[in-house]
């Protein structure tokens, strides 16, 4: 219809222009005086101006946009900042239906332990490419493919992982249903884990060792939010598999849940988990939230029964002015570990029944020119990956670990939109030998 209307208007313009030319010729031929000629020319000028306005308006109507001078009539739907003034897209393109959107992030790290030079490493820690595809205005596919440590082969340390791959369906204006492999809505980092989103070269220890960021499960999720700033998520998903616990390795005490998560890689799914999260952002600059994830990790495996794992956490983030303040507390409990640990006696690493971690973080974002930002920060963390063990007999029950306390100080330098350089220094307060210096480069697009 718009095309037909537009064609009619164009025909009208052409006819009008032809008429004007004819009238002009006639006027010149029959002009008796200079005065009459000037009057005719003035009238013609007015009419030409009107037609030009009309044509410009029609063009604008066709492009449905504010046009920069000399910009093409039908530019691409997404344009960079340099041409941002001359934006313009066919309406049907907005939202990218039928288009693949690419995005990604990555980080390079250099780690230098203060008293252990041979342990110094430089790493392309993460290289992530994501693709999204919109099937229609309500249905989207989102994915991220990650390569950790640059090279993945039998002889190299790298891993290739699908970090997310889910279908997102809009159910109402505010409510979405996700199905597939998605990130669990827990803590401050898990859903916002790109290197430009956190302070320090590495993710904080609590949201690595206690909350296994980047933590994803396969299943279904519903989420919604309100005008008042309340967002909620509920879901049914795969969970942990306690039979993956390796009692011969210390890995389980470094990051207990990360050692038994399944990442939807032929995951045992005899037992499923449920989760829920609530976040409030109704007051600008403030975020308050919490979440619970619980499910049996026995998965019907021989020797395992009723091993429910429950993780809960609460978090807050507050941005008064240029300050960025965060706090998080997280706790994990594993049910019925005693019967399993009894069979593991003699091994170095039995299964703890509780773990916890919390941190306080403060940063000051000092704005520089051109949106560059320099952000000194400090973070205090206290965590324990084995704060208690179920009693399995005197002399057999392991002693709980001492709490680990870490003070991290450093600087994030955001020097372009989506690019950050970071420096930090970690001090383990009860183990001076573990101090280290890190440098990192991160990007997100």
């Amino acid at each position, binding site marked *: 219809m718009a095309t037909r209307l537009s064609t009619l208007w164009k025909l009208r313009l052409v006819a009008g222009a032809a008429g004007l030319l004819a009238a002009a010729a006639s006027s010149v031929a029959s002009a008796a005086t200079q005065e009459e000629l000037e009057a005719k020319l003035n009238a013609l000028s007015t009419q030409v101006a009107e037609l030009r306005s009309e044509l410009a308006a029609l063009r604008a109507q066709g492009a449905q946009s504010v*046009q920069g001078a000399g910009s093409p009539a039908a530019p691409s739907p997404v344009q960079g900042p340099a041409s941002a003034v001359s*934006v313009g897209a066919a309406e049907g393109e907005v939202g990218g239906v039928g288009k693949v959107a690419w995005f990604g992030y990555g980080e390079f790290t250099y780690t230098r332990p203060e008293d252990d030079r041979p342990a110094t490493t430089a790493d392309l820690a993460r290289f992530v490419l994501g693709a999204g595809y919109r099937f229609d205005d309500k249905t989207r596919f989102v994915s991220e493919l990650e390569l950790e440590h640059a090279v993945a082969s039998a002889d190299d340390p790298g891993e290739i992982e699908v970090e997310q791959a889910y279908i997102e369906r809009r159910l109402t204006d505010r409510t979405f249903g996700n199905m597939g492999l998605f990130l669990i809505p827990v803590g401050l980092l898990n859903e916002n884990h790109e290197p430009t989103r956190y302070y320090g070269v590495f993710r904080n220890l609590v949201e690595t060792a206690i909350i296994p960021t980047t933590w994803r499960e396969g299943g279904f999720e519903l989420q919604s939010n309100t005008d008042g700033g309340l967002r909620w998520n509920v879901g049914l998903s795969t969970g942990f598999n306690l039979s993956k616990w390796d009692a011969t390795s210390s890995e389980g005490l470094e990051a207990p849940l990360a050692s038994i998560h399944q990442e939807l890689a032929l995951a045992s799914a005899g037992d499923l988990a449920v989760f829920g999260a609530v976040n409030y952002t109704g007051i*600008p600059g403030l975020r308050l939230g919490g979440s619970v994830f619980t499910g049996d990790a026995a998965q019907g495996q021989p020797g395992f029964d009723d091993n429910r794992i429950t993780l809960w956490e609460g978090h807050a983030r507050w941005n008064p002015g240029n300050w960025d303040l965060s706090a998080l507390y997280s706790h994990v409990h594993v049910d019925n570990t005693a019967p399993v640990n009894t069979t593991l006696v003699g091994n170095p690493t039995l299964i703890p029944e509780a773990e916890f971690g919390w941190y306080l973080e403060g940063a000051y974002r000092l704005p520089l020119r051109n949106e560059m930002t320099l952000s000194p920060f400090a973070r205090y963390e206290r965590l324990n990956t084995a704060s208690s063990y179920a009693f399995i007999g005197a002399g057999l029950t392991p002693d709980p670990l001492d709490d680990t306390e870490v003070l991290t100080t450093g600087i994030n330098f955001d020097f372009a939109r989506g690019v950050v350089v970071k420096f930090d220094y970690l001090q383990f307060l009860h183990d001076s030998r573990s101090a280290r210096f890190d440098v990192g480069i991160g990007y997100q697009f």
Partner: protein
Amino acid sequence: MSRFDPNPLWPALGIVAAVAPISVTIAATYLTVEAAQKALFPAADSFVPVVIALTDDEKRAVVDAAGPQAPHGELRAWAAKHGDDLLGHVFVDNVIGREDFITYAVGIGVDGKLRPVEILDYRESHGGEIRNKGWLAQFAGKSEQGQLRMRADIKNIAGATLSSEHVTGGVRQILAIWSVALRPTPAN
């Protein structure tokens, strides 16, 4: 110089706009353009499409004033009028949120002051917190780019950082376009 042209052809074009087919954007939009226009200027009885043509110098001025921008989609503009009186302008812009476009409306009164921003549509499951009315109300009354600094003036939404940064940048750009192209010339 004001680029708003009170051309007598505008009413006719208004009719064209009214009968033109409304495509995917609007079909997927949960607050319509018309509703957003009315919310921004309740006293207006007509919204007349505005054509803006910027010179290269004006475009440079806009880019300088607006600062770095996330990718934008289409931008449209209308003059909000009550009878023959100009009340202000309404812009509907599209800017990338996290991975998809946010459609939002900005109203600027003849005094150059912003109205609360209206979100017409947010298409992703993550980052929808940007529709929080309290956050959008932060823009009301501001009239200069220097009052639209992220974090210092407009609070960040933790968990919707990209969306809040990109919309704030977009509002700065719209204010810059208004300033060079539509700001009413003072009566002499």
